[in-house]
């Protein structure tokens, strides 16, 4: 605890620190020189119109894309070139904007695959996942929390979009991450379903750091403390949400459309 406090005075306790991050696709500058510091336990939103570079930025933090320039630090460690799966071992988890599950497997098998991902037993060729009690219990607990247990034997591709979005979150949460990256968690949901997801996310452990891309302004304002606004690959505003809401430029390019 003391050490953490000590690190804090160094300024290196920031959960996530991004410096001058950029991505060029040929001549197209998708993300340009983005700086971002997310403190422990903070809930930070990233908003911006379509094509602002939010998901590209997100994928560089998650490890799916190599940045053209800049650095990403997680708890003071340089993870800029670290493969995706190793970032997960450092406590990072993510969801996808376009639902990315194991469509032909049952709900339970989906969650079990996530629950064993950080365990050594994933290489066991003779035992089933279910025979590892603690992994099974972890999955059962998470599915119970999200009211998914009753549908454990259903095949994921047969479920409604709303349920699939919930499983999307379940897969990330079952690994008990310290940092959760959410890419438009309410994409394509009805207002009622969206409200359910919001209340679910609000109930999560307050110590969990969250970075959320969100299209829906109401959702973003409800979930986060601070907002970063992106437009054409650049950051045009970053700060407490009320400040950002009052920002003239932001209103013009983003909120002004309504």
């Amino acid at each position, binding site marked *: 605890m003391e050490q953490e406090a000590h690190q804090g005075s160094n300024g290196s306790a920031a959960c996530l620190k991004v410096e001058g991050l950029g991505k060029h696709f040929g001549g197209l500058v998708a993300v340009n020189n983005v700086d971002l510091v997310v403190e422990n336990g903070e809930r930070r939103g990233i908003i911006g119109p379509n094509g602002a570079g939010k998901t590209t930025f997100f994928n560089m933090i998650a490890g799916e894309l190599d940045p053209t320039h800049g650095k990403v630090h997680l708890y003071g460690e340089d993870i800029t070139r670290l493969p995706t*799966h190793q970032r997960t*071992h450092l406590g990072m988890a993510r969801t996808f904007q376009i639902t990315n599950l194991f469509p032909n497997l049952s709900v339970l098998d989906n969650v079990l*695959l996530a629950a064993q991902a950080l365990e050594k037993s994933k290489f066991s*060729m003779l*035992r089933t*996942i279910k025979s590892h009690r603690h992994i099974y219990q972890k999955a059962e607990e998470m599915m119970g929390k999200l009211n998914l247990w009753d549908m454990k034997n259903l095949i994921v591709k047969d479920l409604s979009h709303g349920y699939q979005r919930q499983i999307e979150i379940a897969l990330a949460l079952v*690994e008990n991450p310290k940092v959760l990256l959410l890419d438009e968690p309410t994409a394509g949901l009805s207002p009622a379903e969206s409200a359910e997801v919001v209340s679910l996310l609000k109930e999560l452990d307050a110590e969990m750091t969250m970075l959320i891309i969100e299209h829906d302004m109401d959702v973003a304002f409800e979930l986060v403390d601070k907002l970063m606004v992106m437009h054409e690959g650049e950051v045009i505003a970053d700060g407490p949400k009320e400040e950002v809401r009052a920002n003239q430029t932001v209103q013009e390019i983003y909120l002004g459309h309504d």
Partner: protein
Amino acid sequence: MRGELLATRGRVIAIAAVLVFASVSPLFVDEFSVLVLNQCLIWGVLALSLDLMLGYTGMASLGHAAYFGTGAYATAIMSATYGASFGEAFLVALIAAAVVTAICALVALRASDVYFLMITFALAMLIWGLAYRWDSMTGGENGIAGIDRPLIMEDTITYYYFTLVVAAGVFLFFSVLVHSCFGKTMVGIRESESRMRALGYNVWLHKFIIYMISGIFSGLAGFLWVYYNSYVAPTDVELVTSFNALLMVSLGGPGTLAGPLLGSTIFVILDNSVNMFTERSLTVVGCIYIVVVLFAPEGIMGFIKQLRTKVGETDNG
């Protein structure tokens, strides 16, 4: 739950029935039929190995003749050239297959999807080139003949039973494997690689391990084939062998274990009977492939499963 139990019971009964048939039938048929059944088993082992990659993990390889052929040639060279025993040849065949698989996997795993298919194909052509051109080692176009089985399994029926035990062992191991923790990760990779990475799986490593298992067991099939045929030639390593294996899996049902065995059985019986009437058996096989892809893309097992679901639905309604 009851349905699951019934399905398990049905599966056990089916496997037992096939085993009983496979053990008893050689006693009642002529020698040629035993030879055909033996072929079914050997190609079955190759098809099962390929299915781990193709059906379970979603890695379509058009190069399994290479690992099959490496096992076959290593066996032949050890046995005919160096006079090694059955057991020694077995060990060297598996090690050789493992080494070649590892090298091919390191290269091929840089690509995925259709590019992966093309690279596995190109690598297999290299192995074929070696078999064809490296005269002093492989006997070139003539291949290597005179590979004798140990006296104890010299006759057709005994060797058939030996192959049956090996094939049953492979089937048993694979059925444990695909239901294991690791087996689930294979299916996970087939379903979504990017999700697997995000969850914390080193997808490359998992694919490499699966590739190794698949390659080594293909080498085992090659070993069985050489002692069955007492002869190996470049034709065993050529594209047609890779393609046939692919067809057996697609025909029977990728992503199932019964499928590859069913596919290899149908394929071998068909191939042997078509050959009696025409030299154009490849044309016939090609036509079958097109029909399968068009009308039963999940193979025969997939077709049966679909039918069962439909019947189940009408029962409930």
